[in-house]
C-alpha cells in the first residue's frame, strides 16, 4: 500500500485519537503513522526467521490485549486491509469482544484492491478466486479455470513450518505442477506488488507459468493467473429460465 494515499479518513481519525497504536507494516508507513500518533509500537519485532508465526501472532494479540485490559484506547494498524489475509486483527477483535470490550474493524485498501486498479482487472468480468498459496497446495481445491485465480503469499508457498521468510524453487516447482492441472507452462501470469511510495511504480511482471519457478519473489508478491478457458454456458439452467419467462407471459 502507498504512503499518504491508502488510508480511510475514519482509520486515520482512530489512529490520531488512540492512546496507543500497534503497527504492522513497511518501515516508511510506520514513520507516516508515527506522525499521526507518536505512541506507536511496532509489531514487526515479533517476527523472526525460524520462529513459528503462530507464536508471533499470539504475541501480537497479547501485546494489544494487555493495553486493552489496562483500559487504554488501542488501535492495531495493519498493512493493507486488516481483515484480508490477516489473522491477528480478527483474533484480537474476537478476544476483546469475548472479554466484554468494544472492538471493531475498519476496512482498508488491500493488495487486491491495488491489483485490480493497476492491472485493469475487474473480478466481476469472469469471477475471481483467491487462495493463500500454501493452503492451495496443502488442500484439494476446486479451481475454476474460466475465472481469475489469485494466489497470495507465493513467496512462502508450501511452507509447512510457518517459520520461513521464503521457500525455494523446489517448492515452486510443486506449485507449478499443481497449477499445470489447469494451466499450461506457457500460460501468462502476472507477479504484482503495490508500490510503498508514490514515486515508485507497481511491480507488474508478466511471465509464463513455467518461469515462475525462477522468478524473484518477496513477501508482498501476489500472483494473478488469468483464465485458461472460456466460460461454458449452463444450457439447462438457461432453458429453465427461458421457460419461466415464457410462462410468465
Amino acid at each position: 500500500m502507498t504512503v499518504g494515499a491508502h488510508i480511510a479518513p475514519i482509520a486515520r481519525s482512530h489512529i490520531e485519537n488512540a492512546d496507543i497504536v500497534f503497527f504492522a507494516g513497511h518501515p516508511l508507513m510506520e514513520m507516516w503513522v508515527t506522525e499521526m500518533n507518536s505512541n506507536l509500537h511496532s509489531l514487526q519485532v515479533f517476527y523472526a526467521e525460524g520462529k513459528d508465526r503462530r507464536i508471533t501472532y499470539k504475541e501480537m494479540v497479547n501485546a494489544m490485549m494487555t493495553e486493552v485490559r489496562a483500559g487504554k484506547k488501542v488501535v492495531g494498524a495493519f498493512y493493507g486491509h486488516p481483515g484480508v489475509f490477516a489473522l491477528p486483527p480478527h483474533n484480537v477483535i474476537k478476544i476483546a469482544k469475548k472479554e466484554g470490550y468494544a472492538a471493531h474493524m475498519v476496512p482498508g485498501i488491500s493488495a487486491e484492491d491495488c491489483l485490480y486498479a493497476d492491472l485493469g482487472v475487474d473480478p466481476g468480468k469472469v469471477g475471481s478466486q483467491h487462495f493463500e498459496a500454501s493452503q492451495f497446495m496443502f488442500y484439494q481445491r476446486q479451481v475454476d479455470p474460466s475465472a481469475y485465480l489469485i494466489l497470495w503469499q507465493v513467496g512462502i508457498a508450501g511452507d509447512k513450518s510457518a517459520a520461513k521468510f521464503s521457500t525455494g524453487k523446489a517448492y515452486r516447482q510443486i506449485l507449478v505442477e499443481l497449477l499445470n492441472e489447469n494451466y499450461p507452462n506457457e500460460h501468462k501470469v502476472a507477479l504484482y506488488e503495490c508500490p510503498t511510495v508514490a514515486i515508485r511504480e507497481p511491480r507488474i511482471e508478466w511471465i509464463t507459468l513455467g518461469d515462475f519457478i525462477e522468478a524473484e519473489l518477496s513477501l508482498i508478491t501476489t500472483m494473478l493467473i488469468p483464465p485458461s478457458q472460456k466460460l461454458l454456458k449452463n444450457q439447462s439452467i438457461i432453458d429453465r429460465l427461458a421457460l419461466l419467462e415464457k410462462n410468465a407471459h
Partner: protein
Amino acid sequence: MTAITLLEKLGADASFDPSLLSAQDKETLEDIISKANTFNAIELISVPDEKESEEKEPEEEKEPEEKQS
C-alpha cells in the same frame, strides 16, 4: 518539509507534481527509501493439518454436546 511529509503529500495530493521536487528533496526521498528495511507482510498461516491451525474461535473451542437419546 520532512521526507515522510513529502512522501505523504506525494501519495495524497493529486496536484502535487513529483517532477517539481527539488534535487535536494529527491535526494532526501531516495535516501529514506533506500534506508528502509524490508518488512514481513505475512499475516496469515496455512498448515497442512487442521489440528495444527491457529487458535480456534471461542465458540468453536467447545465440543458439541452429545444429543441425549
